[in-house]
């Protein structure tokens, strides 16, 4: 069936709650209201207030409670109204949740999920992509799906995983994209990237909303005879090193595209992986396309300037092709 990205996530959570009574949700306004974006709409009617819990506005308490509950062997799915607010719970995630298994051997099967990303004029506190805060925290899995199929398959995989998973939903994609989602049960493995477009000239390594930006650019460039390969990482921690190396070995030229700020961004890490795994295969410099090193500005012309665009990808791909 055709589902939006948002409905695919809801269906994934729904099916997991149906399948496993130990799965429950908690978060702000997720019950009767159904969540600020309506991802959890209808869950309370179906699964009851014991398993769909409205919480105070207290992100550290939400994560702490989810973690504590997970220690008793149940599987909490905690919503952040916006992923920007995950900073309020940073200590709980970084020092409590992420270090638990390494230090004292307790598994913490919990999911922290919520909307991230720009292109909706949300301003500096409702547009961020804070995944790198967690990529640099060993002990967490960080997931950023780009399609309805992957969103559903990955939320189900995250709920079934025995480790803390942070699931970044791109709010620009929530209702803008629809895709075919199978009716039968499936999961998408965490940590596996996916070639969403095969090509021979150069590779774009990206994820989340930027996959669609890259696909759009690829259509334009194909008319010029530039054939892009697009690798959708799907999971940004752990990274699929093998898939990254493979695409570079195939096309020998690579652009890394992400929405968050350039400095200390994921592109730097991927460039280092390419350096370690496929240096001799490179026929040109590794190119980064990323957000500016500033907060995400509010006004539409400013936000558009801050964020990567199709035209940026086209320009950089032409330049790299000619290198």
């Amino acid at each position, binding site marked *: 069936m055709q589902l*939006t990205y948002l*409905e695919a996530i*809801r269906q994934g959570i*729904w099916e997991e709650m149906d399948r496993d*009574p*130990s799965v*429950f949700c908690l978060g702000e306004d997720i019950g009767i209201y159904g969540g*600020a*974006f*309506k991802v959890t*709409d*209808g869950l309370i*009617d*179906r*699964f*009851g*207030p*014991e*398993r769909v*819990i409205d*919480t*105070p506005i*207290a*992100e*550290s*308490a*939400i*994560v*702490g*409670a989810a973690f*504590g*509950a*997970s*220690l*008793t*062997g*149940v599987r*909490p799915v905690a919503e952040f109204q916006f992923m920007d607010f995950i900073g309020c719970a940073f*200590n*709980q995630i970084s*020092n*409590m949740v992420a*270090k*638990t*298994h*390494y*230090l*004292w*051997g*307790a*598994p913490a*099967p919990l999911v922290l999920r919520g909307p991230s990303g720009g292109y*909706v004029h*949300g301003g500096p506190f*409702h547009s961020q992509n804070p995944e790198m805060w967690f990529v640099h925290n060993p*002990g967490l899995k960080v997931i950023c799906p780009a399609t309805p199929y992957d969103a559903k398959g990955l939320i189900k995989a995250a709920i079934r995983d*025995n480790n803390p998973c942070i699931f970044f939903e791109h*709010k620009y994609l*929530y*209702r803008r994209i629809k895709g075919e989602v199978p009716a039968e049960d499936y999961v998408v493995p965490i940590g596996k990237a996916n070639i969403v477009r095969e090509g021979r000239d150069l590779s774009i390594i990206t994820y989340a909303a930027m996959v669609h930006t890259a696909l759009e650019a690829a259509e334009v460039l194909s008319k010029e005879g530039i054939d892009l390969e697009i690798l959708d990482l799907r999971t940004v921690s752990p990274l699929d090193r093998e898939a990254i190396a493979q695409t570079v070995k195939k096309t020998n030229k690579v652009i890394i595209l992400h929405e968050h700020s350039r400095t200390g961004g994921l592109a730097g890490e991927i460039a280092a992986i390419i350096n370690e795994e496929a240096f001799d295969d490179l026929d040109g410099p590794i190119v980064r396309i990323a957000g500016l090193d500033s907060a995400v500005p509010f006004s539409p012309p400013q936000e558009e300037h801050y964020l990567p665009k199709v035209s940026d990808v086209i320009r950089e791909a032409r330049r790299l092709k000619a290198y």
Partner: protein
Amino acid sequence: MAIKKKSSKHSSNSNGNRGRNGPSRSSPDRTDLRTYSIPDTRLEHPDLTVRQVIEKDKDGAEHIRYEVTGNLNAPVPPIRDSKYLDKKQCIEIYRYMLLNRKMETALENLYKQGKVVGGVYFGLGQEACSCASAYALDKDDWFAPMIRNQGSLLVRGFRASDTMMQYMAKADSPTRGRDGTSHFGDIEKRNMVSPISMLGDLIPVMAGVALGARLQGRNLAVMTYIGDGGQSTGVTYEGINFAAVQNLGLVLFVESNLWAYSTPSEIQYRCKDLAERAIGYGIPGVIVDGTDACQVYDAAHEAVERAHRGEGPTMIEAKMMRMKGHAIHDAAAYVPKPMFDFWKKRDPIARFENYLVKEKKWLTAKENAELIAEVERVIEAEREIAVNSPMPTPESAEGGVFCEDGCHEIKPKYGMPKVKKGTGGFKETEAAVHLK
């Protein structure tokens, strides 16, 4: 909307279906005056105040120092008879308190011998609070200690060698060298959540443990501790408030030990007693003498019983003083000496010993001496085990970051939650939302 009918049956633990806790109306004609009560079981109410003063040294240079004022010669209060503890239980708690102190003395010696990695944290003067609180828990209840609650671990069945090996960063320590002090846990047998160094984070975590257990049909008590320093953190507020609105069986000991590292409680908070904060959360708050094991136990026992009945959290403020520095490196020179003298007379072990031997005559002097000797033998044997454990290999720093396949089987500890499913079905939504 899927449900239009209103149900008259509300379960007491579902979201949003409870009344608020509030003031009592002691005087029906004074509706403008609310009254709240904080029970206080102490047999004395020390009136000491610490403030900053300027002192001149012998060269005439001025220095800021802490000075204590108040009745420093007040008579030492007796131990209050417990409403619940019998002779055998009192002696057992006393033994744990002895173990606690002698374990820490052994750690101090190990430190002086250069066998400890890093520092040592002491619960000197707080043994009654650690031991008698944990003693009130049932086997299935959960707890999470703070750094000074090393006695709680002994009560819950951990060995002194566990803590000693943690301090010595040994391969056989509960964290296999990966962390020190009381920073370890056990979710299988002893139901202990590991503390982290940041203060207050355990409070929502323990609330979550109670939430997880309640989903599985169990009302458990979940006990943890916070100091008069740690309670200043925001997550403390978040955690207590979450436990309160969800009516979870949190038993929170606020250990008012007067010093947050070097900062006196006068600069940590403004209210008279931290237990008053319970009023703001809408939960019961009580004050006990933290140096009196019987008072600590009775308050803990009542809070644990409340938790088991599903009646929600309790805040217990235990008043005492930290009788050493923050850690072994800290001589606590900032504490006015008369304050140490005052609280030394209120030593929890010496007073409990006097209570058991002289007042109650539950132990003869000979039995007491034998008990002390037995505890010393246990600690010496534990010390031997700890000292003889090897250091971990360098390579053992690797691995275990994630729970990999087959590493843990995860299933609800108390049974699969009973599922009630409504009739609502999956539907597509096109609703007004934030930021389309």
